[in-house]
């Protein structure tokens, strides 16, 4: 494996070719905040909280460090005023959705993010995809997925599968940065343990919303 030398926050660092900036930084104890990153999962790049400034051949750029590969001579800055401001805004946007998430609150303190900057949209899920990806990639159970798109995107358990496998697993619960995952699971269980609440076949006069 080729060794690469790069600079992170002024420190010379050796890394393996193919590593991401985030991995190289955490190897030497430099902390970069993340929400959607998990070492057992494929990088996702969904939350953008791990954004850092990189400089290559005199050009600077803002990139997601959990996806950005290390390169020879790369200069990385993990805390610049620009980066901090960006993270603050991301946190404020996420807080509008999940105001009581412990990890968001913690980061908010560090970056001075205010909970009430944006109008509240209490969807509670921040769409980090940890639960969906963990279930698909690690457990290979595929009990839940994202449905819909854009602003109406949400997670959804498949009742037939989740009623069989989830009770004995629940490994995704502690991964969720909010309490939404658990709530969604309980709701699915509740609805499914009775008869399915609606009859799909031959449904007449339905609303497609």
């Amino acid at each position, binding site marked *: 494996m080729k060794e690469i030398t790069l600079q992170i926050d002024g420190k010379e660092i050796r890394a393996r070719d193919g590593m991401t900036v985030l991995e190289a930084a955490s190897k030497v104890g430099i902390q970069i905040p993340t929400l959607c990153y998990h070492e057992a999962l494929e990088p996702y790049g969904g939350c953008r909280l791990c954004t850092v400034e990189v400089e290559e051949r005199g050009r600077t750029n803002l990139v997601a460090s959990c996806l950005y590969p290390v390169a020879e001579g790369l200069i990385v800055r993990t805390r610049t005023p620009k980066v901090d401001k960006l993270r603050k805004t991301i946190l404020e946007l996420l807080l509008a959705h999940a105001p009581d998430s412990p990890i968001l609150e913690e980061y908010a303190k560090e970056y001075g993010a205010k909970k009430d900057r944006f109008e509240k949209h209490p969807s509670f899920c921040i769409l980090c995809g940890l639960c*969906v990806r963990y279930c698909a990639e690690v457990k290979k159970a595929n009990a839940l997925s*994202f449905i819909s798109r854009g602003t109406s995107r949400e997670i959804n358990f498949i009742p*037939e599968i989740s009623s069989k496998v989830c009770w004995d697993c629940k490994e995704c619960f502690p991964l969720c940065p909010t309490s939404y995952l658990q709530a969604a699971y309980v709701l699915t269980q509740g609805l499914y343990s009775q008869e399915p609440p609606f009859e*799909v076949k031959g*449904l007449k006069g339905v609303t*497609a919303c």
Partner: protein
Amino acid sequence: MDIKRVDEIIDKYNAEEGALIQILLQLQSENHWLPKEVLARVSERLNVPMSRIQHITTFYKAFSLVPKGRHQVRVCMGTACHVRGAPRVLDRLEDIVGIRPGETDMDLKFSLETVNCLGCCALGPVVEVDGKTYGRVSPSQVDVVINQYE
């Protein structure tokens, strides 16, 4: 939908995982919507988890997971059609077929939907039924258009 027909369509694509969207599109166009049993069959034959099928079928607007009528009526609500009176055309349509955009009537005859531009603004207000375009539709002509369909 007949499971035999579902299998035929799947076989046409050699039950290849990569053809998932093509298969779903063909099922959608033949049946007008995708019932749960059909999706379960696709999942089983292509060896694709149901979660992924659910993700895809709810992502693209081309797919419907609820029954759709035999005729798909689209009313353009784009800027040009809007100023040329599309809201009044839509009102009249709603009155005749008895449903609002996004709905399907009891006899599964019509599904009504609004779209944001059909790409022929000079013809506005535009109504499209099963892919056939009707231009410069006035509220009073809506009846004539709709009554052609059984």
